[in-house]
């Protein structure tokens, strides 16, 4: 699982995205697979800017959703792992 100090970065050129109503649709341009991101998944995606580390993303989400970082940490890290597995994000 992604470590708290690791920085996830969106892989430019590997995806296209669009916002439809309250959801963000992201397509992997290599595979043609697309993903619908809503709620916390959308918020997480939008916080990935290549400079925030995982801990900062979790802290920002905790603030947005009035939750503790401990409560949401595992879920957010799992989601970042899924984005990496989907080829949309790399971690450093």
């Amino acid at each position: 699982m992604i470590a708290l100090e690791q920085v996830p970065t969106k892989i430019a050129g590997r995806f296209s995205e669009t916002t439809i109503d309250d959801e963000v649709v992201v397509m992997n341009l290599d595979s043609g697979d697309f993903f619908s991101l809503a709620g916390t998944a959308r918020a997480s995606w939008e916080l990935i800017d290549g400079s925030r580390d995982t801990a900062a993303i979790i802290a920002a989400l905790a603030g947005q959703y009035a939750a503790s970082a401990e409560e949401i940490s595992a879920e957010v890290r799992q989601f970042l792992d899924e984005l990496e597995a989907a080829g949309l994000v790399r971690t450093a």
Partner: protein
Amino acid sequence: MTPPRTPAQAMALMARETRARHGTVPHELDGIAVAPGFRLVAEGQFLLRCDSGFGYHYVPGEGVTVERPVGGDLDEEALWLNGSVYAAVACLNGFYPVHASAIAWQGRVHAFTGPTGEGKSTLVAGLGQRGLPMFCDDTLLLDLSAPDRIIALPGHKRLKLTEQALALTGATADGAVGADTGKSYAIPPAGDVREPLPLASLVFLEEGPQPKWTRLLGAERFARLADDHYTQGLYHDAQRPDRAAQFQLRARLATQVGMAVLARPRSAAGFAGSLELAEAQVREFVE
């Protein structure tokens, strides 16, 4: 990327490019042989050779050459010309085809899409009986050249209905479609609209236990836009959009057009119920 066109320019372009004259057509394009029963898009041109002997060759700026075999059926000639050939000319000129029949109401187009036999034409004929004029049957052409609007081009095909659909809608038959299609031309009960108009909504028809209208939201709008009609193949052959371009196209439709699903059982009662729903939704449509 197609430069922005006005609706009038789009209409003039299609009228000019689909002009047909009789002559002989080649048997190959770009060095690739095209056997009877096959079609090819190459070098910006379109070549279709039918099993029956008809041939069609489109060259941009020159229009369509039609080769008619001895004793060729004139109805068949028109069907090919208004079907695959018209769609290919449109695609080569940057228009986007949708497998849909549509009506027009208060200056906007509401289109109904679904697989062949799902009842697109029947619904449009039924809505005609309720005073909503037809906009197109079977193929809806969209002009996406201007980024801020999606313009639909009025239909070039006559309304075609099965005997069952004629009985269901009460529409008036106007001659058989070819020799063995089992369909008749029908007169649109509320007439038809002949001017390009903005596309307001796209409604997906499907079978369901009872008539039900469901507005589509979010990613479902994007997911629903997978169309396997043959005209999509023509578009891809003509424009060769990469995945990013295909994504942008679907994203535009998903964000700029209202979308819904109309489910109904395949019965006379189901048809009546779906007509009521569709009419109410179209007349009350709000962005």
